[in-house]
């Protein structure tokens, strides 16, 4: 039952906000809808803890240990982002960057985006998964171009063409998957695209078709994950769109796209033909880590820099899923969680910092800590967390990934360490300069929302020190299923 609420609330919210989104209280309504989605997701989570995996609506929707924590995470980050966006977008309106009609579009599309991501996570049908990912692209194209500046239109166009074309490859992969499955499951009842059914018969699927399908699926969904060399859209879309959207793009959309890749990998691995899928993912992952680390040095725009950091972390997670095995997969799932929370917290802090400074160019942002200690500390702690400093959770997951790499693939360890080291130096140097130094920043017309920043960082800190037993149990179960 809760599963319908999780999907229904954001969809109804999107339609309602499309009608009344220009009212003064629309930001509060947006927060309310997101919190309602979060409570529905929490109820769903408790239901799954109590009764185990469930199927709904003619098996079209399903919840298992792998997607349940992503649903909870998506709903949580969606809710905190809506809390952050309330004062943020009011300040943007005050600065004259958006008018009320655009705000209506923004609020409606924000909820629509949440709906498409939750649908992508909860659907059991690989075809609907594709449709939901494409719909997520369309809604975010509108959000990235919200300011209508030449740069934002260019970013949105690039995003649409690259992701649209990329995701078309994933549709071809899905067709090939259907071709392989139809021989075993039959086309009549159309269960041949349902993941649970595919998973049951995966060792009978034709390996050659599945391998080719996986190449297309990885390229397609990998474009949305931001894997190098398909990452070109990502920094532009993050830098030119509104900051709450950068936070949900990095924190949620990349995760959901990677989730799609991993679902496909499970099937390909099960069809039993070598480790092609794993090797491909490891290769793309390592390339992304190294490329992003070196691009980090050349950034001047603060949001672009953290966008490259997202590419780096997605590379680490993809690499870990590619290695496979219980420890690496456990670490990858943990890293998905902590990266999502930390990166969105950083974008919240970055958003207010850029508003205070009136620019996103890092050279012109100075002395955050003396003007606004909370924004400064939020950015500092978030940066330390994302760079993998103990005791934050990112350290735990990166440590696990590194030791597994040392054991199973020693050749990859120096490459990973190089990437992490270069990224550390590049990001730390710039963030330190922005936080200390002579202040150039101005006070804001609205008090910023910093509760989301510290809530996220507190969770990440907790996950580094202590992991609740049921969470660890989920990760273990999911890791077992993914293999």
């Amino acid at each position, binding site marked *: 039952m809760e599963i319908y609420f999780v999907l229904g609330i954001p969809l109804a919210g999107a339609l309602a906000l499309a009608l009344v989104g220009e009212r003064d209280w629309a930001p509060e309504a947006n927060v309310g809808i997101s919190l309602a989605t979060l409570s529905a997701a929490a109820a769903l989570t408790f239901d799954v803890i109590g009764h185990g995996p469930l199927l709904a609506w003619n098996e079209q929707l399903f919840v298992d240990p792998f997607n349940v924590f992503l649903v909870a995470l998506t709903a949580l980050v969606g809710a905190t982002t809506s809390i952050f966006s309330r004062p943020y977008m009011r300040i943007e309106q005050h600065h004259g960057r958006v008018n009320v009609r655009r705000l209506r579009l923004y609020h409606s599309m924000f909820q629509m985006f949440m709906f498409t991501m939750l649908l992508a996570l909860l659907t059991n*049908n690989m*075809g*609907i998964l*594709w*449709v939901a990912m*494409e*719909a997520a692209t*369309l809604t975010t*194209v*509108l959000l990235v*171009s919200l300011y*209508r*500046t*030449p*740069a934002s*239109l*260019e*970013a*949105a*166009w*690039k995003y*649409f*063409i690259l992701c*649209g*074309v990329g995701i*078309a490859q994933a*549709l*071809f992969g*899905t*067709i*090939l998957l*259907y*071709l*392989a499955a*139809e*021989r075993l499951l039959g*086309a009549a009842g*159309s269960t*041949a*695209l349902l993941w649970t059914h595919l998973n049951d018969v995966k060792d009978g699927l*034709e390996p*050659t*078709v599945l391998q*080719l399908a996986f190449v297309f699926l990885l390229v397609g969904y990998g474009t949305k994950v931001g894997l190098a060399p398909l990452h070109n859209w990502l920094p*532009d879309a993050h*830098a*030119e769109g509104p900051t709450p959207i950068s936070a949900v793009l990095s924190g949620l959309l990349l995760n959901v796209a990677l989730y799609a890749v991993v679902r496909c990998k499970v099937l390909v691995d099960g069809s039993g033909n070598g480790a092609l899928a794993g090797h491909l993912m490891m290769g793309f992952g390592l390339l992304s880590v190294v490329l992003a680390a070196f*691009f980090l040095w*050349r950034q001047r725009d603060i949001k672009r820099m953290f966008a490259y950091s997202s590419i780096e972390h997605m590379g680490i997670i993809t690499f870990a899923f590619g290695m496979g095995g219980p420890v690496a997969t456990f670490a990858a799932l943990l890293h998905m969680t902590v990266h999502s929370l930390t990166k969105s917290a950083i974008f919240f802090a970055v958003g207010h910092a850029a508003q205070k400074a009136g620019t996103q160019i890092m050279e012109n942002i100075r002395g955050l800590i003396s003007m606004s200690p909370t924004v400064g500390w939020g950015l500092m702690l978030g940066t330390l967390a994302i760079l993998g400093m103990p005791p934050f959770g990112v350290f735990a997951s990166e440590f696990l990934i590194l030791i597994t790499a040392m054991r199973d693939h020693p050749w990859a360890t120096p490459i990973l360490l190089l990437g992490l080291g270069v990224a550390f130096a590049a990001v730390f140097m710039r963030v330190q300069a922005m936080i200390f130094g002579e202040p150039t920043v101005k006070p804001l017309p609205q008090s910023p929302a910093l509760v989301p920043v510290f809530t996220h960082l507190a969770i990440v800190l907790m996950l580094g020190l202590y992991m609740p037993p049921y969470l660890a149990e989920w990760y273990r179960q999911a890791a077992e299923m993914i293999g």
Partner: protein
Amino acid sequence: MTHLPISIQLINLFAAVLLLVSFAMLSQRRLVSLIDLFAMQGAVLCLSTATVAWNTGQTHLYFSAVLTLLLKVIALPYLLHRLIRRLNVRWEAEPMLNIPSTMLVGVMLVIFCFGLAQPISELASTVTRSTLGIAMAVVMLSFLMIITRRKAVTQVIGFLAMENGLFFAATSATYGMPMVVELSVALDVLVGMLILGVFFFQIRERFDSLDLHHMESLKED
């Protein structure tokens, strides 16, 4: 040589025409003619789907054919025509298009696709499996078109042609995807087209042109 049944011959003929139309689109500079070619591609796709449905008795393919007719032969070309009329780019032509070398790359792509599709089409159980290579080639040729063009509207037509190729692939490999998937994909395409229609006006308002040369400020230097 054995005689194939007439319906299979028809399907193969349609597949060949589809490939031909894709090449024609690749070399067409004029926007108006490009939209007509796109509509023609949709019409061939619709006829071919209907023939497969008639040949195999798969009734849901008739729905697919009707969907293709409504969306890709009527709705999308109509929207595109209206769009270019309102944007006043009706008679614009693409400058600087090296047709001979684009064609050569296209031919090589087709050969590559046939090679790639060979092992898969042997595994498929449909009567239309030999056309899978052509479907893949249509996808790749549309891809080439998106890469080589510098106008926003042409890139979108390339994107839609790619969707046509994917539809054709689904029909030839598996007699189409489940209905719910096909319907939602069609909905996505339609919504995407409407969004882009609005988008074109914004691009033109900001850049005074739909030429993508103007959109090259965001890159790493």
